[in-house]
């Protein structure tokens, strides 16, 4: 493959050119209700050529690997049509590297029959909880992907990745009321995380059933305590996307709002993004431009200290490349993405963090989240009232929303109980979803946050 790619790159006459080829094989098992709906394998091969001429890009993707050199010329021709002034890519030392998957237990070594047997038990577990369970969607999936990459700077990388994920949504219904509970687990190294999850699926089902009797949340402004899962979604959605430099570099006003060194959050907040962590959902050794991954601090003690870059955004902003150019598949050019994003642990215990709250809301786990620059909104799966420092009755239908800049400053406590979310997340941007990302956080508290109830 290396010969094939490097030969095709040789003749290009753009400023920059790269080729990425991907081979994949995946398995999925999907149950709707108690019934197995889909089971089987998918295989694929495909690739792309991306070329730059004077700051304009050409991109050609394909399944058919023949005539790669013609695809290179087409990409360069397109780039020339889009040419502007100059191509400014941050310098990255060329590397030749092969990164195997660091696998403890490989999903490929487990038979389809055994995978199905495990999942059958989880479907039974979820449905055993209550006769109010109306339906469920429970899934298992695994994927193996091998990526070959070379660029005209002399970088050549090969990377293997395994990804295994299981989870589901369980829906309960009673007297016209419908509620859901969710769970998920993901790993890039160990098939065994799929085992022994009976309790997790039961918990999701119990959560759905107990929400049936929950009170609707009141609307208004509250002190809100976020559990590690929803806190990590908050930092990903509300702040993380603003730290992606492609939003910033061609937008002078956003550049003014996000000046490195400025105080943009509460001084107890430190946030990092790192693909270099071992074996998390968003981990890798080289990004999709061949740049090595590393840990990047974004906020340190409330100050904006960094942002995430591709080679192009780093080159245009004269900042160091961070290894965050990612593409969900060969059908897309890489764009600036998060990897494993985290809020670092603070010093308050969870009890103390609740203890000061006279009348507030505790939110646990999430159903979804979205942002439009300054505005964010996301939905908690479970929520409880906090009264005089103690958790009280369950609430349903809690949506959090606000302005990110105000909310970051309103974080008044960060707990000491950091955890990486074991579920693995899927992030969407520019039509590329769901991209595997990791997220971690301790419990955090926001002094003022708008809650909208149903």
């Amino acid at each position, binding site marked *: 493959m290396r010969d094939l790619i490097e030969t095709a790159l040789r003749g290009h006459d753009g400023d920059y050119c790269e080729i990425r080829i991907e081979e994949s094989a995946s398995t999925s098992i999907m149950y*709707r*209700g108690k*019934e*197995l*709906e*889909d*089971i*089987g*394998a*998918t*295989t*694929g091969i495909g690739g792309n050529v991306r070329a730059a001429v004077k700051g*304009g*890009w*050409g*991109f*050609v*993707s*394909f*399944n*058919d690997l023949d005539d790669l050199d013609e695809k290179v010329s*087409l990409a360069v021709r*397109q780039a020339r*049509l*889009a040419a*502007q002034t100059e191509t400014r890519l941050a310098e990255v030392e060329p590397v030749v590297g092969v990164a195997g998957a660091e696998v403890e237990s490989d999903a490929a070594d487990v038979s*389809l*029959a055994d995978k199905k047997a495990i999942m059958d038990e989880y479907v039974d577990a979820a449905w055993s909880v209550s006769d109010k369970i*109306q*339906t469920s969607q429970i899934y298992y999936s695994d994927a193996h992907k091998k990526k070959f990459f070379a660029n005209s700077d002399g970088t050549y990388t090969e990377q293997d990745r395994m990804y295994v994920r299981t989870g589901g949504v369980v829906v309960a219904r009673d007297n016209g*009321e*419908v*509620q*859901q509970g969710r769970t998920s687990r993901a790993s890039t190294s160990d098939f065994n995380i799929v085992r022994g999850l009976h309790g997790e699926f039961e918990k999701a089902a119990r959560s759905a059933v107990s929400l049936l009797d929950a009170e609707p949340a009141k609307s*208004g402004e509250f002190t809100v305590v976020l559990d590690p899962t929803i806190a990590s979604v908050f930092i990903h959605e509300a702040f993380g996307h603003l730290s992606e430099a492609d939003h910033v570099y*061609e*937008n002078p*006003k956003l550049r003014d*709002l996000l000046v490195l060194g400025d105080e943009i959050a509460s001084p107890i907040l430190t946030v990092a993004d790192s693909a270099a962590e071992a074996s998390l959902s968003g981990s890798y050794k080289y990004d999709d431009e061949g740049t090595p991954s590393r840990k990047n601090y974004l906020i340190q003690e409330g100050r904006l200290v960094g942002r995430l870059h591709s080679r192009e955004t780093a080159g245009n902003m004269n900042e160091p490349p961070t290894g965050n150019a990612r593409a969900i598949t060969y059908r897309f*050019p890489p764009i600036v993405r998060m990897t494993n994003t985290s809020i670092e642990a603070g010093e308050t215990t969870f009890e103390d963090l609740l203890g000061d709250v006279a009348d507030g809301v505790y939110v646990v786990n999430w*159903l*979804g*989240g*979205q942002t*439009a*620059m*300054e*505005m*964010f*909104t*996301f*939905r908690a799966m479970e929520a409880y009232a906090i009264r005089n420092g103690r958790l009280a009755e369950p609430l349903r*239908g809690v*949506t959090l929303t*606000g*302005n990110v*800049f105000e909310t970051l400053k309103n974080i008044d406590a960060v707990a000491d109980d950091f955890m990486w979310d074991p579920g693995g997340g899927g992030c969407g941007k520019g039509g590329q979803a769901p991209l595997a990302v990791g997220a971690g956080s301790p419990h955090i508290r926001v002094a003022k946050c*708008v809650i*909208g109830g*149903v």
Partner: protein
Amino acid sequence: MFDQQVLELAEKSTDQAEAFLHSSSTTPAVFQANKLKSLETKDSRSLTLRVIKDGRIGVTSTSRTDDPDAVVRDALASAQFGAEAQFEFPPLGERTEVDVFDSDTPAFPVERMVEAGRELISRLLDYNPDLLIDVSLDKSQSETRISRDGVTDSYMRTGFGMSVSANLIRGTDMLDVFSFDVSCAPEIDMDGLFTEIRDKLELAKETGSVTSGKLPVVFTPIALMLTVGPALGAGFNGKMVEQGASPLAAKLGEKVFDERLSIHDDATLDKRPRSSPFDDEGVPTRRVPLVENGVVSNFLYDLQTAGKMGASSTGNGYRGRGSPSPSSTAAVIGAGDGSMEEIIAGIEEGLLVEYILGGGQSNVLRGDFGGNVHLGFKIENGQLAGRVKDTLIAGNAYEVLANIRQIGGERRWVGGSLYCPPVALEGVTVSTKAS
């Protein structure tokens, strides 16, 4: 042909086999931050083999073309555990007449796409030089080919689309306005896109705030798609009905909605990007009434789900790859009366919602919708009175559509998936930080 080779092999070891081949070529031109960013050519192809063996369904998909034996092996492994087939393949060859191929589209020069993008950006920058504008145009052509029982049927479809979003930042205030238009032919209403963006930016110059509580809320077609859209999409999905998860499951033939409401799903409209002569299972498409004068009249089915329900496929079996599932093509809502101005004129205090953030995050199965008003305007004494911020709306599709305040008379397309007028609803909860 690889698909025929795979099918022949599969037929030797199964009771029935079907090859579904989808191939497409798309050419996008992408403008970011007022400048042309990239030109792309994306070719893709995937083969899905579906077999029935000992009464069970096996499915596999691949974009490889090197090993037909492996494809059949994967399908057989799937059939070992697969769902029991509740249908028989209908004969191929029947199709609904619909025009979804325009030869001008593949021939449309990339240079003209680039010109069109530049022109729209320069008109918008003439209006306001502080705008940051993203534009994307794309043309595509695809072929869908289904083979089984010695018969192959196929159709070609073209698509042409343009989308524009304009971003304006003032201090920490960011405003996003967008619009889009699609067709099978390279016939985009550029003036329409320009005027829509300009008018919304003009209206957003003033700000206003509404009181929290239940207010009359006017939803534009895009807002309807983002709010009640996901709820109704799930409610009329035959699979949800079959599972008993749809609140409409037991309501066939009952009046659930306001009697002025009629909705149908229609894949038979010419030049629409989601129309086709037959669905991804080779079943001819048709106009499927879902709500007639408030009465639930049909659900959307593919072959397998219809089989389970003792119903017939409605020609709504669609798939990217893998197994098909029931899917809406284009939802069409019947027009009522009155222009947008007339709808607003009758409202003392209310809200006009253009689009929301977080629309699909609520308890969609229950019919709930909710989210942050991404762009919306206060209605005061029958007039639009400024853009609202920090405002959430929430409601339940089944409740708010049971007693509609007013269905507008002027319909428009939202991309390829919805054709509807603005609708004014009561019973929507509005919450705002300002009050």
